[in-house]
């Protein structure tokens, strides 16, 4: 346990973060892409994951009575806020759910069982998150969704940042905020580079740590690693690919991700140390080793665009410059070294 103690390290950037009684806002983004969950069902069931997240949320709420939470779900077709609910929606949905659960099972196992011994705030969050999440999972057209390859991670991050901005910065509520992204990830997932990077920069500027917990087999999410690295968040890959297992998720969440932003400068974070800093080509969306950079807008290309114009800023490149890039006897045309 002593290993976590990082107080020996220099406390930089901490002048404005005195250890006071400031509450914090936790924004959790949950992957609601059903086929991905189905793929890893042998390791962790979706309902166990949901239960783990709820325990984590309750733990966060228990740490300070002004702590608050925001839950966002995303799949390939979009992202939406699950908690806090829009006013009015809560009651009807949970009623519907109660009726439904009673008709399907005997109602005893349903999470909305009338347990009056439970702390009221926990109960509200638990019920709303479950109702809304199941609702999202049930009402998605998986076939249509599958045609979309772009995941809505950037959309979910934007929602989270927007929520935080409204409740922390606009309302000046003197709260700290952080984002936890729980992603399963699937093989064909493509993260939109520019929107995601923009979210990362925004979070970095607002000093909001972005934590990522990756459960599934999806390809290495370079940009998410960069997100954690640049915002001083925690990146943990607990998928089989990283020879770990998402079993015991609640333990990972409670021991790895519970630390409040105010504590972060003082402890050693269980994050991944070697981060891949490469960028993606704007044309092919692939991560590039060596590529071209637009001198006007810094857009990255792995090949010379066929129309000789920048795909982002529409600058027409001069024939002379382009000719200079691909002269004989050396046919290959590569530029600038992007060091890993």
């Amino acid at each position, binding site marked *: 346990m002593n*290993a976590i103690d990082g107080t020996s390290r220099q406390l930089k950037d901490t002048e404005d973060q005195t250890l006071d009684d400031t509450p914090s806002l936790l924004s959790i983004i949950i992957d609601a892409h059903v086929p991905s969950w189905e793929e890893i069902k042998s390791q962790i069931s979706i309902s166990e994951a949901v*239960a783990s997240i709820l325990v984590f949320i309750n733990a966060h709420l228990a740490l300070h009575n002004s702590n608050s939470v925001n839950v966002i779900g995303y799949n390939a077709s979009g992202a939406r806020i699950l908690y806090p609910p829009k006013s009015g929606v809560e009651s009807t949905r949970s009623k519907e759910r109660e009726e439904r659960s009673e008709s399907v099972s005997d109602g005893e196992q*349903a999470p909305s069982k009338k347990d009056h011994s439970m702390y009221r705030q926990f109960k509200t969050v638990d019920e709303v998150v479950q109702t809304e999440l199941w609702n999202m999972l*049930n009402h998605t057209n998986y076939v249509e969704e599958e045609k979309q390859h772009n995941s809505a991670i950037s959309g979910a991050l934007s929602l989270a940042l927007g929520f935080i901005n409204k409740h922390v910065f606009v309302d000046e509520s003197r709260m700290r905020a952080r984002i936890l992204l729980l992603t399963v990830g699937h093989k064909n997932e493509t993260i939109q580079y520019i929107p995601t990077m923009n979210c990362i920069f925004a979070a970095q500027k607002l000093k909001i740590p972005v934590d990522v917990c990756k459960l599934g087999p999806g390809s290495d999410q370079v940009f998410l690693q960069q997100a954690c690295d640049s915002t001083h968040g925690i990146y943990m890959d607990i998928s089989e690919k990283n020879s770990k297992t998402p079993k015991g998720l609640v333990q990972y969440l409670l021991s*790895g991700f519970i630390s409040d932003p105010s504590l972060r400068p003082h402890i050693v974070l*269980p994050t991944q140390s070697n981060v891949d800093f490469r960028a993606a080509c704007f044309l092919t969306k692939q991560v590039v080793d060596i590529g071209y950079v637009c001198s006007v807008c810094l857009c990255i290309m792995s090949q010379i665009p066929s129309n000789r114009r920048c795909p982002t*800023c529409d600058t027409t490149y001069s024939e002379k410059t382009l000719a200079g890039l691909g002269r004989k006897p*050396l*046919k290959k045309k*590569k530029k600038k070294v992007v060091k890993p």
Partner: protein
Amino acid sequence: MSHTFQATNKKVLGVLSISAETKKLEWTPVSGDRAPINVNLANVTNLQATPENSAKIMLKIVAGDDPSTFAFSNRGTMIECRDVLQGLVSRARREASNPPPSATGDGSSTPATATPPPKKEEKKVAMDDKSLLADFQLQQTLLKESKELGKVFAATVIHGGLKPEEFWSIRVHLLRAFALTSNQKKGPYNVLSTIKPTTGSDNTVNVQLTPEKVKDMFDQYPVVQTAYDDNVPRLKESDFWARFFQSRLFKKLRGERITHKDPTDPLMDRYLDDEYDKEAALAAGMPDKVHRFVDIGGNDSQAGSESFGNRPDMTMRAGSSGRDVVSVIKSINRLSERLAQKSEAPLAEKEYGTLALADLQGETGAEYVPLQVRQSDTNGNKKDSDGDVDMTPLDAEACKEYVHSQYDNPVSLASLVHDDYSADYAQAWGNVQGAVNQQKGSWETVQESLMDPKVLNDLLVVHTTTIEFLRHFWHNFQEGSAECSSMANSLAKCIKRIDAAVGEVKDEQQHKLAVGAMASVKTSIHHALKEYDIALRG
């Protein structure tokens, strides 16, 4: 204001008077029948004084093609006369080229403009690539100026065998920037702000004064010159300055508020009066007529906010406290304007006009160029178009079923915690701890036990050199230049150099750090050489 000097013209003693108001120089003989000499100052094209070591003390004034020579009895008078003439001549000339606006009734629309001083000859510096690359002097100065660049130059060109032309060819922009900055001249500055009287131990005020500073002071604050002219022969020069720097006038000119605690000095306090300043303002070319848009005085004739019961603005208030502030503001404004006029790049009349108007407007937001990020559908999803990724068809039914089964059998929160501490949890905890330990380890090696400064410095030099060669390699590579092969050789040498530098680090821990530090640049070299190989064979 006029100045009079005793001067001899063609061996006849007379009085030379120079008037600022009429802008004329007049010489009248004390006796005899010689006709007086009249010179319009605006026509003066040349002033010549005999050199200091010359026995004669004479001043030659050329106006048109008719020079007149005046002899003085002592050098001090001559120099004073020359200085006065110089100031007035340049002012008269300026006004002659920009005649003061004629009054055309009330509400004339003469814009408030600055009179641009005569353009100085600019030393043209060639900014094209070719002449920059050929300017060895410029390159040498830049290398001396920028230590970092000098180091790279020494490592790559002097010791690394890179041609200097190659070195500069990719740094033309640095040369250009340097040429531009080094050709810039300092503009005039507010001289009083640089004079800081200090009180010595014996309670005397010490001021460092140089002839330049005195000249600048006269230039920027004509009232000081007036005071000096009026008093100095009577008063000792040093006494004058001593009294000036302790006076209220000095405080006022510096833009400080005068309090009743400040000592009074009847001699100096005379010049506090606006009379003297008004003259200065007029002399500085303040227009009589102000553009109506910026004419604050014009507000009086209009139904301003004051007629609705609002208190006038602080600068518009009559009264003792207000006037102090106003006169401070005025004198600072005047000074700024005069300094702006003297600066090298005078604002064009039109620009000045827009500036004056834009000054009164609110802040404008930053302008951005929108970048159109298009989601290119054509080659966006490589996996689809190529079809090289085998997409297992989605079993929508299975997914649906899974969700339903999960929905119907939710895991209760209690069951997560009530279970015995399972192996999964233990493993999870172990993994978190492992990550922490790894972080701590890497953190300690990188941050706590820093690299030995000497080792770090050696590696930095090698690293910079390598990056330099890599840059040239890729530059040549794309241009398909024949130099590429020699650059490839240099890169191969770079690897040896890196290995040698790393090999020299004997300490085990330091060696490990060194290897790690140089790993990525080595990867870059290998990558470059591989590309070169492929290109050669292809």
